[in-house]
């Protein structure tokens, strides 16, 4: 069955198709530009596959309903943009601590506050990592094309289900609203991972006990007759609240380590012309399209410039980028914000190369020529 192999889709629509392919069967959300097409397509598509859509009264409710559906074993997603993403933060932390798989799509728009409602921005980069209070694990993935939006949505579900962490698909207005032709891979070409469940009922009664050698506890959905408690309070292996410093310490470190010890598997990035580059342009999401065009043009013109594009933006692909910083003179971070990924680049560069920055906060996109000019300066 290959009749639907190629489709012309908008980035937002590709997210929905990817989510359905990944097994998403529940969506709850509240409309906000530039993410609304995701809710609209879910409303249309979910019942066609026996899934369910609900438009909630606000984003607080959207993420709450998503976590609720996940608790009974249904893969669930919500989508929003800046103002709504801010409202979701408390329950993103809940999902991180209670270890409930869920995917949150943030199609960024220019902020702060109501900001520039339909204009592109990447101003939520730091919020995606640290938006909710307290130390918490989270994975953030930022696609740069419609094709990648499809594939990375599937990967977001896989990571969320296997590691029991909220995964944030950090889209932006550029990719969300971009139409491109994409290839839909056949079902047997894509890996779909489901959460691991506990077969042994005695073990299931300890919902946060870990099978030796695994990073995240296996999860028995509610409704199986196991009977356990889920809470956003620090809890013991039974899921019951405790204020024991030892258990609190163990729990906090364990959930952070799910990411730390697994960053190789989670990390994904793309490199171009980096073998002999003296200058490296770093960019992600929609901005990376202009950055790549600038790098390609400069490379054609004889500049020794390469390109590094994190797809997983949190955790930042640190090892690969660390190595790059040791062999280039300059790194140029090009992003649609005041300098957020730049901070992460500076941290990893640790003074070993110069970190330049082009950031835009006026609601327009970065043009390749602006980045080209910076490449010339760095190379000159």
């Amino acid at each position, binding site marked *: 069955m290959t009749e639907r192999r190629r489709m012309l889709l908008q980035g937002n629509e590709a997210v929905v198709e990817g989510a359905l392919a990944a097994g998403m*069967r*529940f969506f*709850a959300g509240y409309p906000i530009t530039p993410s609304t097409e995701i809710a609209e397509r879910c409303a249309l598509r979910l*019942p*066609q*596959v*026996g899934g*369910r859509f*609900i438009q*909630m*009264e*606000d984003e*607080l*409710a959207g993420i*709450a*309903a*998503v*976590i*609720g*559906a*996940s*608790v*009974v*074993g*249904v893969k*669930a997603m919500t989508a929003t943009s800046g103002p709504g993403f801010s409202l979701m933060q*408390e*329950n993103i932390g*809940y999902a991180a601590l209670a270890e409930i798989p869920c995917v949150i799509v943030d199609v960024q728009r220019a902020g702060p506050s109501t900001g520039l409602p339909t204009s592109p921005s990447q101003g939520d980069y730091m919020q995606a990592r640290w938006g909710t209070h307290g130390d918490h694990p989270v994975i953030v993935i930022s696609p740069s094309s419609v094709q990648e939006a499809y594939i990375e949505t599937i990967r977001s579900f896989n990571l969320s289900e296997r590691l029991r962490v909220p995964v944030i698909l950090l889209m932006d207005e550029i990719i969300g609203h971009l139409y491109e032709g994409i290839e839909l891979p056949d079902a047997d070409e894509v890996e779909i991972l489901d959460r691991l469940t506990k077969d042994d009922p005695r073990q299931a009664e300890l919902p946060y006990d870990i099978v030796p050698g695994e990073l995240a506890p296996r999860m028995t959905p*509610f*409704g*199986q*007759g*196991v*009977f*356990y*408690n*889920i*809470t*956003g*309070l620090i809890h013991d292996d039974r899921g*019951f*609240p405790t204020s024991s410093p030892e258990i609190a310490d163990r729990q906090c470190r364990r959930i952070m380590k799910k990411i730390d010890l697994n960053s190789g598997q989670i990390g994904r990035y793309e490199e171009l012309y980096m073998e002999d580059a003296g200058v490296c342009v770093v960019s992600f999401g929609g901005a990376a399209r202009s950055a790549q065009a600038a790098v390609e043009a400069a490379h054609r013109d004889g500049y020794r410039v390469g390109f590094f594009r994190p797809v997983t933006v949190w955790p930042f692909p640190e090892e690969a980028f660390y190595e790059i910083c040791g062999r280039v003179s300059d790194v140029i971070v090009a992003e649609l914000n005041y300098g957020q990924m730049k901070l992460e680049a500076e941290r990893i560069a640790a003074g070993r190369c110069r970190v330049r920055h082009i950031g835009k906060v006026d609601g327009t996109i970065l043009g390749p020529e602006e980045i080209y000019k910076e490449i010339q300066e760095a190379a000159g």
Partner: protein
Amino acid sequence: MAGRLIDKYMRGMYLPHKWCAGCGNGIILRDVIQAVDNLGLEKRDTIIVSGIGCSSRAVGYLDFDTIHTTHGRAIAFATGIKMARPDMKVIVLTGDGDAAAIGGNHLIHAARRNIDITVVVFNNNIYGMTGGQFSPTTPAGAYASTAPYGSIDPDFDIPALAKAAGATYTARGTAYHVLQTTKLIEAAILHEGFSVVECVSICPTYYGRRNRKGGAVEMMKWQRDNAVPVEQARKIPPAELEGKIVYGGLWRCERPEYTRQYEAIINSALPE
């Protein structure tokens, strides 16, 4: 009898509970369990959801699938659970602040949808967990730690609010009226649609002390002497009911239930 209920429905290893001496929540929790037992609900078909607050801590003691969520969001979590598993009974245990202040929006919208969830509000007229600030059900004129001169905020009538928003079953019970309250919770669980049972609790520690209502015994006696069955209240002029608790089944009607309507959508959207 009580021993049997504990064994059947409670997580014995976490007892005794954390509520203050004299708190009415334990009685209301027992009413909930008794109602579940009277109806013969299967534990595996029942999910119990709570928010944050003293009352919301109830779920930890219950040997069901239980989820203690975030402040105000219990009904929104419950909505996702019910949508994803419409075959399950979903019961929300919540406080007056949890349900009607921070969670008020979810309460009215779940009522509007008429989704089949039963909400039991433990109304102690105060924010217990945080130490006695006024809540949306603290009567105007009453004292609280954030109303040291007396509250000027009028209070909500939660069942009336729920009814106005579209709930298809509403009732009010009290900590004192155990048998009646149990029956009301049973009726709410049996009702297909959004049902709200406000259970007037007592909080001698914060509300009672600040408002010179005496200890637990005096507060319970006050409930006994000032609660009016709804059938009787309907014959009394409203002015005479000022400051009284009108209890009983307050409202019931039939309206299409939300998840059933969604099933119809699925059936029409599924490819032949």
